[in-house]
């Protein structure tokens, strides 16, 4: 049985259609509601940037904008509108990146609608571009439901929960033979088992890759093995970045296999200098070279033009836990067998609009994992033993273990400083308490504690900015910490580390991570914030970015929240458990005046 309220069956299609229609309207509606909010609030929510000034434009259409502060949620490739006010249609651009030190934001003119002058003289702003690709998903559902070919029937069976999954003996034999030779040899046990399952299970196989377990590498090896067996393989994901990562890893691991990425320029420019060929459309994919296997990559919503036939023998979904179930039919409609690689214990799909149907926020990976047990990659190369322990127990049934090299790593403490107790290498994961009370989204005493600790990491402990990350759930707190850090680090000539929400660093790792949980108003947390703040997926990602030192800065009052919805209460209980189980070092007396402390 799938997650609560989502039983597979033929009725899944009507539910998906309703969801997509509703989502399409929610995108338009959400966008309208978003624009009904004042600019300041949209900036605060990370959904707008204001007060920008054009610095210049490069020959390739990249615009450089002076940007005092970037709290936006946007990622590279997001479509935006650059304009002076909401009354203008604006110039369509694509988000490229932000230089924190120089305070320069880079966007590139979109190939569609990116023309037009940009005024240098007046303040500009960036708003999200309303985009709805639900028509593609709806068409995919129609294609899958009504096609009669064997591939479509197999795909329907998988999504309706009727598929009989079995290991094909000859494929199993093939996979095991491959494991004796490069580049497939030398895998640890769980990776070997997952590799065999990925190649040999039909019609669907799932591989779950916890943080630091190398799932993208495993996906690349599986893709190579399938392509070398003569299968036509498609690699797909929700984002260009995810597809490109697999193709790059494939090109490195198996140079004898040709990889072709299909997509617009902003979806392929991080492939420059690699062996991956970039083309604009499926029609432009060259035929495979003689005796060279070929793998094609394209994002899920870029498959719209080929939904009518099963062009591929195998479709490999990477980051499948970030592919909303409602969009998965796009990939299922073009293949006959499927491999999904992901981790539903980390961040899931982003959904706009509010939906009561649990299907709305479900990823295809999580949906199928309830029916077909994934092969779990059990070794992490990232976290040491102390940091790995809690997430392994809570999210992976105790089955995730650090590789011996990772397990033994310790934080390289330079002793004699004010935070030695917190940075003790013998305490890889620790809670640093600052018992403030009543704060919601911004807490100055806690921000000071975080800034002092991070300054110590960069100055006394001599970590590079790239070795440290600071994470907080709230943008207001992020701003507070950045301001304090700039003041502390500038005199020492140090650059800022990443200070952002955890979404920005999913997939990344650092030597040390400091988390500012910020909130100490339990009734406020138990309200509308509860589902967001206490999300176990967000907690898991937060706890698993650090290699040797994880510091959670928090007040005990946070852990008193009692959300009224059971799921939120259960998730809040995980936080209580974390607070009880991790060692604690109290910093309250350094950051809170006597008069403001309670029992």
């Amino acid at each position, binding site marked *: 049985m799938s997650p609560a309220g989502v039983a597979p069956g033929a009725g899944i299609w*009507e539910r998906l*259609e*309703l969801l*997509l*229609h*509703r989502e*399409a*309207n*929610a995108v*338009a*509606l959400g966008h*309208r*509601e978003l*624009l*009904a*909010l*004042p600019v300041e*609030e949209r900036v605060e929510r990370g959904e707008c940037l204001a007060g920008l000034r054009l610095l210049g434009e490069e020959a390739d259409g990249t615009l450089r904008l002076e940007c005092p502060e970037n709290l936006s949620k946007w990622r590279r490739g997001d479509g935006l509108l650059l304009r002076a006010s909401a009354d203008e249609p604006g110039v369509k651009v694509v988000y490229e990146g932000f230089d924190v030190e120089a305070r320069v934001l880079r966007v590139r003119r979109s190939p569609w609608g990116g023309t037009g002058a940009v005024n240098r003289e007046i303040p500009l702003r960036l708003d999200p571009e309303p985009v709805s690709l639900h028509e593609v998903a709806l068409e995919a559902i129609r294609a899958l439901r009504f096609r009669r070919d064997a591939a479509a029937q197999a795909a329907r069976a998988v999504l309706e929960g009727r598929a009989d999954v079995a290991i094909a003996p000859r494929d199993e034999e093939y996979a095991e033979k491959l494991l004796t030779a490069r580049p497939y040899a030398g895998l640890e046990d769980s990776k070997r088992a997952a590799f065999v399952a990925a190649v040999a299970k039909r019609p669907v196989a799932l591989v779950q890759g916890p943080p630091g377990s190398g799932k993208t590498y495993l996906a690349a090896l599986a893709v190579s093995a399938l392509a070398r067996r003569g299968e036509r393989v498609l690699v797909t994901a929700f984002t260009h970045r995810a597809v490109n990562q697999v193709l790059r890893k494939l090109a490195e691991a198996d140079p004898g296999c040709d990889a072709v990425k299909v997509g617009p320029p902003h979806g392929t420019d991080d492939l420059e200098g690699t062996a991956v060929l970039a083309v604009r459309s499926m029609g432009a994919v060259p035929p495979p070279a003689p005796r060279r296997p070929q793998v094609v990559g394209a994002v899920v919503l870029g498959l719209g033009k080929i939904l009518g036939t099963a062009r591929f023998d195998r479709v490999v979904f990477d980051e499948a836990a970030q592919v909303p179930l409602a969009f998965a039919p796009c990939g299922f409609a073009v293949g006959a067998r499927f491999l999904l690689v992901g981790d539903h214990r980390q961040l899931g799909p982003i959904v706009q609009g*509010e939906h*009561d149907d649990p299907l709305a926020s479900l990823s295809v990976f999580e949906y199928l994992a309830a029916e077909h047990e994934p092969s779990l990659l059990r070794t992490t190369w990232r976290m040491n033993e102390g940091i790995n322990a809690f997430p392994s127990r809570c999210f992976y049934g105790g089955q995730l273990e650090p590789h011996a090299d990772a397990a033994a790593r310790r934080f390289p403490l330079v002793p004699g400083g004010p935070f030695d107790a917190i940075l003790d290498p013998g305490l890889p994961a620790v809670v640093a308490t600052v018992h*403030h*009370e*009543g*704060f*919601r*989204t*911004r*807490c*100055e*005493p806690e921000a000071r504690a975080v800034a002092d600790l991070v300054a110590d990491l960069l100055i006394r402990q001599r970590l590079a900015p790239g070795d440290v990350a600071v994470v907080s759930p709230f943008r*207001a707190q992020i701003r507070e910490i950045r301001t304090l850090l700039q003041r502390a680090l500038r005199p020492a000539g140090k650059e800022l580390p990443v200070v952002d929400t955890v979404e920005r660093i999913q997939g990344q790792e650092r030597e040390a991570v400091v988390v500012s949980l910020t909130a*100490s*108003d*339990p*009734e*406020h947390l138990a309200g509308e914030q509860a589902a967001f703040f206490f999300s176990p997926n967000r907690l898991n990602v937060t706890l698993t970015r650090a290699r040797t030192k994880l510091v959670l800065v928090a007040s005990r*009052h946070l*852990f*008193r929240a*009692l*959300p*009224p*919805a*059971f799921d*939120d*209460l*259960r998730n*809040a*209980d995980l936080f*209580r*458990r974390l607070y*009880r189980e991790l060692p604690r070092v109290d910093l309250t007396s350094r950051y*809170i*005046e006597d*008069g*403001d402390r309670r029992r």
Partner: protein
Amino acid sequence: MANPVPETTRVVASHLYDFAACEHRIALDTRLDRARRTPPDDAMRLLAEHGRRFEEKIARELGYPEVRVEEDDWERAARDTLDLMRRGERGIYQGVLLDGRRLARPDLLERADGESAVGSWHYVPGDVKSAVEARSDGALQVGFAGLLLEAVQRRHPAHGFLILGDGSRWWFETGSIRRSLEDSLERVEAIAEGREDTFPFFSRHCGRCRWRDACLPGLVARRDASLVWGLTRTRRSVYARHGIGTVDDLARSEATALRRAGAPTDGLESLKRQARALLDGKAVAVRAVDLPEGAPREHYVRIETDPLDPGDAFLVAWGSGGPRGGPLAETGVALGGGPAERVAAFRSLAAALGGGREPVFHFGRQTARALDSLGREARIEPAVLGALEGRLVDLSPAVRNAAALPVRLYRFEEVAAFAEARPLPEPGEPDDALFVTFALLRESADPDPLRERLSAAGRDAVVSLRALRRFLAERAR
């Protein structure tokens, strides 16, 4: 508190329910004479009766032996319960569990495999709830029973359950909320035993609280800061240490001084505006809000649902009119009750709204959820239902973005009354009067006056939505 805590004070499962709603209730319950409690009104009697009848129905169907408590002899009842457990009864209704000063009386104890001190089996706790959704307070109460079961049978039950209003069984792992339960219980006991002080605090739970007459008059008379929407108990407590205890204090407070003193100021400006609005009885403008403009017609929808079942709509009201204000051109009301009535109500509504892109204004998620539930029950095509839902514009966040109103809870009744310059409901006045009327309708020998009352309420609601829309339009850019 004036009275000492009696030594016989027990901590019971309902204290956990109270703790989640208002911790001060526990102090009142354990230290004041319960005869001072406000008698239940019609709605509370109806809800209690509805709950009791549902529970008895389930108990009859299960056929478990019942444990009775004679003359307040709880120890005897606990012994009787233990006897039934040792006998290996399949289930026990209203069993009593005692452990020191803790007392639990879960609706159901059911036998499960696995050895314990009572035999080669053990028992798991469950409760019957007339709501259709499982909530934390219900799970905490069952979890509490689980703790006492552990003391009695020397085995902690790994699971507990709720039987919900639709008859379904909802299971949960008791361990998944254990720490929350233990922390809550520690505080409940501290309050019950007088080791921790509490204070009265105005919230939406006051409307149904049996102690409201002990708290509310005082809160209103001294213009307690808790009357300000958005102020939480924790923030109230922190601000009190900095000399802010009343609405007036909050309105006059200075962010700089508070920040220097180390007090939280995030969200303070919003609280201050709210306090000023309450003091002056007038809206305090926040900002202009944009709402959809330019459509030849606008529609308004209000759907009332069973408080225990958000999918069960009993009143569907709608109206439409031109964009420039003025009276509504058309209104309609349909009453639900059963599936056929609800489907008919939805179809009438859908016909009135038409198939265009004109906005449909409503207030609060309740209407949106109910519309979705009705549409699926009526088996409307996904494309049609999705398009209809896409037209919904919720005025509730728009109101809060536009202005701080002199209301306490931002419920529809209060906001509508303000927009129409009518007297506001009294603090603590419950908001389920319509549901009570509907419940009475079902049992009345003369339903017509009640029907008319409901229909009139529905028409009034859409008129109120129109007034609210005008109020917001006046503040638009």
